[in-house]
């Protein structure tokens, strides 16, 4: 038995690294050209950078103990970094980057491009770096939680367009329950339950009654918006001190980690909800790819008939995955009220649930990919806000558009392969 497998692998495995299929080749060239275009933009920006100093502030100006700032000569730094991006793009176009080194080089590419851009935009001005990170995290936290909820559902083959609805229900439940009980933790628990409630409706109609899942998701969003709006008008609005004044969770610094300069303050002096988000990323990744249940979820989402044949209860696993998604989405909802801004207001999620969906797709239905995409969305959104304050030449609309343009590019398959779980959105009928 053992011998057989080894011979088998010996026969099929050793494919020379230099050989690539025409498909891969096409993809490499497309990606390389795209990177080269981006690098070209970087070079152009660098060329137009004013020969002044760019200052990256490491703390807010009103902070108790202001930290020093990084001062760089904008023009040479921008030129050097733009050259780096061109080098990486060319390397990929000609040789193809893969493996660990590839990931590292792409990270360098991204970082160099962003810094080039900042040198150009903030030359002669002060750019608050820590605030950029802080804002990115604030904006990305609900997106990450929403996208993780989407990953859980869609990996099991149930399309979840209702993330926005889960957010709204969670945000509302958290604000009201936290105010009534006087405990923010109770609010978070209520948010989770509300998220699960919407998830349960999604699950029953999608799995049991096989309703078209995209339509169903949209309907659930409208339902959640309506019901929270109705309850808010009827009971909460007039009595905001009694029902809608939950306060905001306070930051809990993690000892040691929170004293790391620059990033410590941002990433490890946060609320428990943000730490829960960190944990959720790790847990969802681990569960989906390292546990038996996770394997079943993926099987059910890719090929439910095959999963059924080997004795997996397809519908049960789907129910479990959708409800688990509800838990995560509910947490995301709680962030909008008790986690960040306090009281509930009608439709305060303002479409973030749909952006989480975009992050999920851009992240290729992978928890880590979705997290990175959500961080990217948060980063550009925050950058846009910051650049408006320091009055840079770039029109803000262009920056607002950028992440979605990137999503379209990603979904169109220009960057690598984006493929939804095969049975995503297809109800399973045993037979």
């Amino acid at each position, binding site marked *: 038995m053992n011998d057989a497998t080894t011979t088998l692998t010996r026969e099929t495995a050793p494919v020379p690294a230099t050989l690539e299929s025409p498909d891969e080749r096409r993809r490499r060239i497309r990606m390389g050209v795209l990177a080269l275009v981006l690098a070209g933009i970087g070079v152009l920006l660098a060329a137009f950078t004013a020969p002044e100093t760019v200052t990256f502030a490491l703390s807010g100006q009103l902070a108790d103990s202001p930290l020093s700032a990084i001062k760089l000569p904008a023009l040479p730094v921008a030129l050097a970094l733009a050259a780096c991006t061109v080098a990486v793009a060319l390397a990929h176009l000609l040789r193809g980057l893969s493996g660990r080194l590839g990931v590292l080089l792409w990270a360098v590419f991204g970082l160099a491009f962003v810094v080039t851009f900042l040198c150009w935009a903030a030359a002669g001005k002060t750019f608050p770096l820590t605030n950029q990170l802080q804002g990115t995290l604030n904006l990305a936290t609900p997106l990450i939680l929403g996208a993780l909820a989407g990953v859980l559902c869609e990996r099991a083959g149930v399309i979840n367009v209702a993330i926005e609805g889960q957010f709204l229900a969670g945000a509302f439940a958290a604000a009201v329950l936290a105010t009534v009980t006087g405990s923010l933790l109770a609010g978070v628990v209520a948010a989770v339950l509300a998220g699960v409630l919407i998830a349960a409706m999604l699950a029953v109609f999608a799995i049991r009654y096989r309703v078209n899942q995209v339509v169903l998701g949209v309907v659930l969003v409208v339902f959640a918006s309506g019901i929270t*709006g109705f309850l808010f008008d009827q009971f909460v609005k007039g009595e905001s001190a009694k029902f809608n004044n939950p306060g905001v969770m306070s930051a809990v610094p993690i000892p040691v980690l929170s004293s790391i300069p620059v990033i410590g303050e941002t990433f490890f002096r946060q609320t428990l909800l943000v730490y829960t988000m960190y944990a959720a990323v790790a847990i969802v990744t681990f569960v989906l790819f390292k546990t038996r249940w996770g394997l079943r979820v993926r099987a059910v989402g890719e090929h439910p008939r095959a999963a059924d044949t080997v004795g997996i209860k397809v519908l049960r696993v789907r129910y479990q995955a959708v409800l688990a998604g509800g838990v995560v989405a509910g947490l995301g909802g709680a962030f909008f009220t008790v986690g960040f801004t306090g009281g509930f207001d009608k439709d305060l999620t303002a479409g973030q649930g749909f952006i989480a969906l975009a992050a999920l797709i851009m992240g290729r239905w992978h928890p880590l990919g979705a997290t990175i995409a959500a961080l990217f969305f948060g980063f550009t959104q925050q950058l846009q806000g910051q650049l408006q304050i320091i009055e840079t030449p770039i029109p*803000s609309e262009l920056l607002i558009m950028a992440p979605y343009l990137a999503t379209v590019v990603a979904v169109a398959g220009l960057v690598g392969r984006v493929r939804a779980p095969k049975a995503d959105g297809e109800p399973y009928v045993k037979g």
Partner: protein
Amino acid sequence: MSKYLKGLAVLGAMTLVVTACGSRPTESNQSEGSDKTNSASPQAGAKDFRACMVSDSGGFDDKSFNQTSYKGLLDAKKELGVSSSTAESKSDGDYPKNVGGMVDAKCNVIVTVGFKLGDQTAISASENPTIKFGIVDYDIKATDLKKTNLKEVPTNVKSLLFNTAQSSFLAGYLAAGMSKSGKVGTFGGLPIPTVTIFMDGFWEGVQYFNQQKKKNVQVLGWNETTQKGLFTNDFENKAQGKNTASNLISQGADIVFPVAGPAGLGGLEAAKASGGKVNAIWVDTDGCVSAPEYCNVLLTSVDKGMDVAVQDVITTSFQDKFDNTPYVGTLDNGGTGLAPYHEWDSKIPADLKAEIDQLKKDIIDGKIAIKSKVQPQSQ
């Protein structure tokens, strides 16, 4: 409970049926008829007189301009005993449907709230010349006839306008006087005239302070000369509002002036979270009344008396005295002004308060000219 819900559902269904039944021609005849009854015996016809209102996408509970306008409707209802209908818009796409719904509901006067409803109001008013319209924050004369496909500007619309640049000027002066860091910040919801007028006034107030006191207080987030600044790009996203205010704070602003409806509440949250370092000025309504949880960070609010104007347009329509000359709220007629200082009353220096009172007089007398280009023209 379930009986209650059932009843509610039936009621809802009935409303739908009733509103769907009224076809346009019959209904406009009827409203003509009821107009005549009203002029004969105004008070007696109060129940037949229907005053209606359509919100913009902020909704009637925005703790801001929709809410104040709505209060005007409630006040008129209480005062005159008229019936009322309202439609709350969830998005910009709802306007045709909601204004049309009010027409179908046989309203005698329809008040639409907000600049964003301008085109729709002009179209509906032209189609229904017997119905009186009032529109908050929009000058009907500025209607783009090509875009709305109309031959002329309808004459049955009264514009309710507010020169909030005047009151925001005072707010800017106050902010500059109270800032310790020498930087004050503002952000808007969308770059539309009814938002930027506040920011223009605020900016000019700060510049005036600098000129008078030989100081250099900076305004972050808006520049009147370039008309460029900071916007959340919607009026709903509170988290974005808080984040935007935090960005201003990280750049050193210690007074923030959010002009973004409910999203601006996030800005107040950011001020509250700063632990006393940062304070704010609210807009449209007295923040200490509409959002009391933030009262301790509010120096004052820029008040915009939409309730009075709305009540007035309903009352005059009811008494058959409607006219279409625009109403312009100013410091002079009390249509806009600074709200009380509340908890800050004792903390704001008496000199500064006296200077602001003097400024107010000077603006009324025309000694100080405000340059903002988006100011409504007084009649």
